[in-house]
């Protein structure tokens, strides 16, 4: 028995009613910044691959928790961020083959879940590119714009965000910097964020993003396009006493 002779410290005997644990759980969630229950998600089928955003975020989680510098690719924006949110696109529009040029692909994201008062430190749009065979061996310019305002009777107002140059046979995740769009999306994140992607060949011809190998909603789960926002939590870590 060890030290049984020393009676344990007597704790105040306060019993919780059935309802209270739920309140207490809600408070614990609030302390940890966890939302209430997410919308029910269909469990992953055996054949279904985990989606691209959770896979990427799990890498970030491992990099964040293993900050002793072990393994994994360096994550440039991680150190300054307290909150990192990934968003999957809710709407995808194409103006591609058979219609007038320039061709483009547009993605819309619902940003309503961003907590108020967060400061953006960085934001990226990630899209997977497969090798493109037509035309082969050519240079492609991928440019990204924010759709600032849509008009029913004329072209939307666009704001330039990033330009990447690569080869048509390149394959892998293409990361486009969309941090500059946060100046507009933060003040009114009740509006969807619209991003538009153009592809041009070296001689200035517009090209269908799909033909260039950029995968949209038809991609497998693990290669779906998504965006990531890095935020600096501005809420004080010390709570006022009750």
């Amino acid at each position, binding site marked *: *028995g*060890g*030290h*049984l002779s*020393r009676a*344990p*410290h007597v*704790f*105040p*005997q*306060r*019993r*919780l009613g059935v309802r*209270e*644990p*739920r309140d*207490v*759980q809600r*408070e*614990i969630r609030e*302390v*940890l*910044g*966890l*939302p*209430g*229950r*997410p*919308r029910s*998600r269909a469990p992953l089928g055996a054949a279904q691959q985990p989606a691209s*955003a*959770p896979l990427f*975020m*799990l890498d*970030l*989680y491992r990099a*964040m*928790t293993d900050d002793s510098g072990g393994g994994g690719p360096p994550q440039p924006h991680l150190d300054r*961020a*307290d*909150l*990192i*949110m*990934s*968003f*999957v696109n809710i709407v995808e529009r194409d103006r591609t083959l058979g219609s007038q040029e320039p061709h483009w692909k547009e993605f819309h994201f*619902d940003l*309503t*879940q961003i907590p108020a008062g967060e400061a953006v430190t960085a934001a990226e749009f990630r899209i997977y590119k497969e090798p493109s065979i037509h035309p082969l061996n050519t240079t492609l310019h991928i440019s990204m714009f924010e759709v600032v305002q849509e008009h029913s009777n004329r072209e939307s107002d666009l704001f330039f965000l990033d330009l990447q140059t690569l080869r048509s046979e390149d394959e892998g995740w293409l990361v486009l910097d969309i941090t500059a769009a946060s100046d507009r999306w933060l003040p009114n994140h009740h509006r969807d964020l619209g991003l538009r992607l153009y592809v041009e060949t070296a001689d200035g011809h517009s090209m269908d993003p799909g033909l260039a190998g950029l995968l949209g909603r038809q991609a497998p789960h693990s290669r779906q396009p998504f965006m990531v926002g890095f935020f600096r*939590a501005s809420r004080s*870590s*010390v*709570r*006022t*006493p009750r």
Partner: protein
Amino acid sequence: TARPLKKQQLNHINQLLHSNTYLGISDDGHGSHGREVCRRHELYVSFRDLGWLDSVIAPQGYSAYYCAGECIYPLNSCMNSTNHATMQALVHLMKPDVIPKVCCVPTELSAISLLYYDRNNNVILRRERNMVVQACGCH
């Protein structure tokens, strides 16, 4: 809703904690002579037990330390409570016979990281600073 811990689980936690206290395996402490020595114990908050693993992707829970006994820096109502102190107070409410009330002002805290789904099934990674007590005013 929280699933009440099964009796043997609760007992298991109990034994773990009290074995800490009685056997002194991993606790250290001090206190003026003849009074209950302030000892540091391990508090494991299990998201699995709380039934939250449908939204929390990682980790499955996290460990923190807390103190029980007479302390040099008792936390009182006019102080700002850190996130951890609030968490311990809440867990004490749920398990008063397992987790004592907060008694010390933590002096050394570290962060935990949480990966979870939000209401729209976006994936969120949050770093909660000042969350895990490493040392309190007594040790």
